[in-house]
């Protein structure tokens, strides 16, 4: 498809501006010419060109509303339309962040209550809603760990991270000046307790654990893990990316976690928007509340207000108050589902993952054969050995069947990993159709491996050359490229 710049024709326009109703003075008399620009190089198109361009692009994009999207660890559940409708109400969109509190009582109440709801669901003392994404919440969480030990006057230089953790974990830790120490997993896909005991010293600030972990397995020894970490004065951090597995079933706070970050765009159904905006609230236990970012919304009698007076706070991690409009959607979702609905969501998310695991187990290698939580992880190694077909080929072939592929090559501890997260919002027929496609692909891999290696065959573009893109980067268009 042509670029919007390639469709540009001098003199076309898609907007109309109001006539200036105040006396005009030439800009050059107000601002020195040396501070002004010559030209603005933006496309010139008519409104219909604009609409057809972006409608055309949208038709080359795959979303949850088009089909099954079992991307592991990303919780691509259905995004209820009511949430969008509510979030577009002018009462929520039109307010300036510096509007006086008295004009923003609805927003403040929503944020105050959302914090309370999340605290109850996860068993934490309090939450901040300021972080703009999961990774941002995680960075905020590690900053709080740093502040906690700073205030205690303890120098701790390391943070423990399991070998199967999300890549953001070590990155967040490194950005707070800690050294990353890897904890290995045991044969059943949990934390190796002996290894943990050996590594957990008084120089270690804590352990960042994803639970259920990235194999989709619940950490059975969570009590011992908690005891080992806390026994040496460390903090236990929960990467809450997989929180869709346990709503109303268990609570990280009860399990001994001191900190948890969430992803409202995963667990609480706010749309992923092609990679954002999301929101990454961070919950903490009682001892860590003083360190949460500022400002915080508080209740004063029957009114709500902002309060920035927390001297031990790590400070601000974002301007204003976070991705407010995303919070509106998550709040609406919690009110729609209620306590029974949240529990039913998790139960069915877990049932669906186990159903897929059972249906596919004879066709793909299952490296950890246990009851799984909301996702299951297979390996494509059998296909590599039998027919030289790799996981990426299986994923690309799934595109021809009309499905978004699972997460692939993650977690790193599983070779040729295929990580499937079906979510609770998918019907049995959809799950069956996906399993049938995976089974058909396993057969194709044996009988006609070339069909997979050259896939996809039905998409608007064929397999793309990533190596060329990285070797000769072209990240901005210019007229010379034509």
């Amino acid at each position, binding site marked *: 498809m042509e670029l*919007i710049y390639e469709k*540009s024709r001098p003199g076309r326009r*898609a907007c109309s501006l109001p006539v*200036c109703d105040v006396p*005009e003075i030439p800009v050059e008399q*107000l601002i020195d010419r040396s501070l002004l*620009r010559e030209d*603005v*190089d933006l496309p*010139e*198109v008519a409104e219909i060109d*604009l*609409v057809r361009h*972006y409608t055309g*692009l*949208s038709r080359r*994009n795959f*979303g949850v509303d088009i089909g099954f*999207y079992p991307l592991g660890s990303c919780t691509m559940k259905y995004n209820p339309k009511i949430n969008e409708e509510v979030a577009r109400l002018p009462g929520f*969109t*039109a307010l*300036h*962040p510096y*509007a*006086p509190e008295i*004009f*923003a009582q609805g927003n403040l109440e929503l944020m105050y209550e959302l914090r309370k709801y999340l605290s*109850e669901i996860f068993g934490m003392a309090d939450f901040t809603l300021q972080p*703009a994404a999961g990774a*941002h919440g995680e*960075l905020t969480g590690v900053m709080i760990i740093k502040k906690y030990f700073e205030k205690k006057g303890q120098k701790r230089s390391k943070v423990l991270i399991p070998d199967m953790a999300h*890549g953001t974990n070590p*990155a967040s830790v490194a*950005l707070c000046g800690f050294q990353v120490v890897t904890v290995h997993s045991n044969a059943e896909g949990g934390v190796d307790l002996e290894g943990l005991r050996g590594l957990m010293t008084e120089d270690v600030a804590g352990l960042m654990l994803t639970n259920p972990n990235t194999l989709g397995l619940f950490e059975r020894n969570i009590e011992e893990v908690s005891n080992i970490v806390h026994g040496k004065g460390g903090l236990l951090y929960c990467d809450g990316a997989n929180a869709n597995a346990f709503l*109303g079933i268990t609570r990280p706070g009860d399990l001994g976690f001191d900190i948890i970050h969430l992803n409202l765009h995963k667990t609480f159904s706010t*749309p*992923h928007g*092609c*990679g954002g*905006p999301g929101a990454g609230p961070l919950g903490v236990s009682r001892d860590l509340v003083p360190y949460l970012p500022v400002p915080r919304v508080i209740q004063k009698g029957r009114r709500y207000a902002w309060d920035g007076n927390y001297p031990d706070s*790590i400070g*601000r*991690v974002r*301007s*204003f108050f976070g991705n*407010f409009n995303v919070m*509106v959607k998550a709040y609406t979702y919690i*009110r729609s*589902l*209620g306590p*029974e609905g949240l529990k*039913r969501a998790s139960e069915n998310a*877990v049932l669906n993952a*186990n*159903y897929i695991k059972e249906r596919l187990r004879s066709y793909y290698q299952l490296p950890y054969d246990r009851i799984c939580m909301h996702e299951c992880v297979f390996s494509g190694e059998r296909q590599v050995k039998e027919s030289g077909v790799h996981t990426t080929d299986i994923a690309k072939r799934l595109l021809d069947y009309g499905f978004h592929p699972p*997460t692939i090559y993650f977690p790193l501890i599983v070779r040729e990993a295929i990580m499937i997260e079906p979510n609770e919002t998918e019907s*049995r027929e959809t799950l069956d159709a996906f399993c049938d496609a995976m089974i058909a692909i396993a057969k194709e891999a044996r009988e006609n491996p070339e069909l997979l290696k050259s896939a996809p065959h039905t998409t608007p*573009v064929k397999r793309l050359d990533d190596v060329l*893109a990285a070797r000769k980067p072209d990240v*901005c268009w210019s007229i010379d490229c034509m």
Partner: protein
Amino acid sequence: MDYVPHTAEDQRAMMKTVGIQSLEELFADIPTRYRLRRLLELPPAQSEAEVFDFMKGMGDENVPPRITLMGAGSYHHYIPAVVGHVISRSEFYTAYTPYQAEISQGILQAIYEYQTMVAKLTGTQVANASMYDGATAMAEAAVLSAKILNRGKIVVVKSVHPEYRQVVKTYAWANGYEVVETGYRKSGQIDAEALRAAIDENTATVLIQSPNFFGVIEDPGAVEKAVHEKGSYLVCGFTEATSLGILKPAGEAGADFVVGEGQSFGNPMNYGGPYLGIFASTGQFLRKIPGRLAGATVDKEKQRGFVLTLQTREQHIRREKATSNICSNEALCALAASVYLACLGKNLKRLAELNIQKARYLRERLLTLKGWEPAFPGPVYNEFVLRCPDPGRVNENLQSAGILGGYDVGRHFPELKDGLLFCATEMLKKDDIDDVVSILA
């Protein structure tokens, strides 16, 4: 309403396949004593109509003003109808990060076009797919500079938005870097002498903003030499993106990084978010900048296509060697910005002129009030600080007339305790301005 499609029969059949008698068995790995034996204490489920009614009531507890004179990092602009329509297409908003390029060409091409628009507007060679907001974009540019140069000092001019400085301080503290603040002169612009004195061999970067927090336009070219002489990087920020339509781009004036808030481009004020952080740099940082980048390539039939590229910069591969932990962007906000910019086209310049004219008229009219004085004589875009006899009273009077007044700059600048920061965009009509002045007269 829980959006679970299973019937009782579906569940029974699936449980049979899994080999369990009850759903409870699925959670066998969770130690029994940690399983919640009660329902969560949350309000009960509601029907869609009830939820809508309830939420509408909550939204209505907010009182949007009839006239807005507030800017200070979030701006009231008209959003053309096409913007909302495009970003409401669920092929876009229900998709995730384009990991599977062949079925994500729509957003990948849109991001590539966004990067192109941003690079052209900022006078740089490279722009990423966006950051969380303007403040984190500035903080990431500061941290990246320190990591590249292996230097531990960040210099920031006090006329940078106070919340941006706070975020920079939080990120710097976490990384163990020192932050030094330098002042501004009477014009409201950077005190170049003080800045020069603050830069030393350990200075990684100098953070400035134009237009700055006071609305005053800076000349990055005037400080660029002092920064580069010591081998430091110049980061130039902005909060009002529409100013890019008329002001000389900071990239052309010698900034190494141009970062700022993109909200003004087609995103509602939304009580502070979601917004998008614009992040652009000179070509030399192409392989270092944080966040996502869309790049052009070809498919095996040699047709043009787009992919996420230079992923080796990304956290999921670099892990503990990462210079940033960001692994997403504000894609839908960036899409809104692209549609907005394609819609405005070259008229972005005229929109910027309208902002300048309205602000000039508002400023001139407010200065007719008794005891009101300009705080800074420097040139401004659509915001300016005025000193007035009783800022608190001024805002109260405006508030009772349904008008959102100016930002009380005294909150962050004791020397400007009688100062209010006002903003006028194309949304402000002459009649509104005259109304404001008559209320305050």
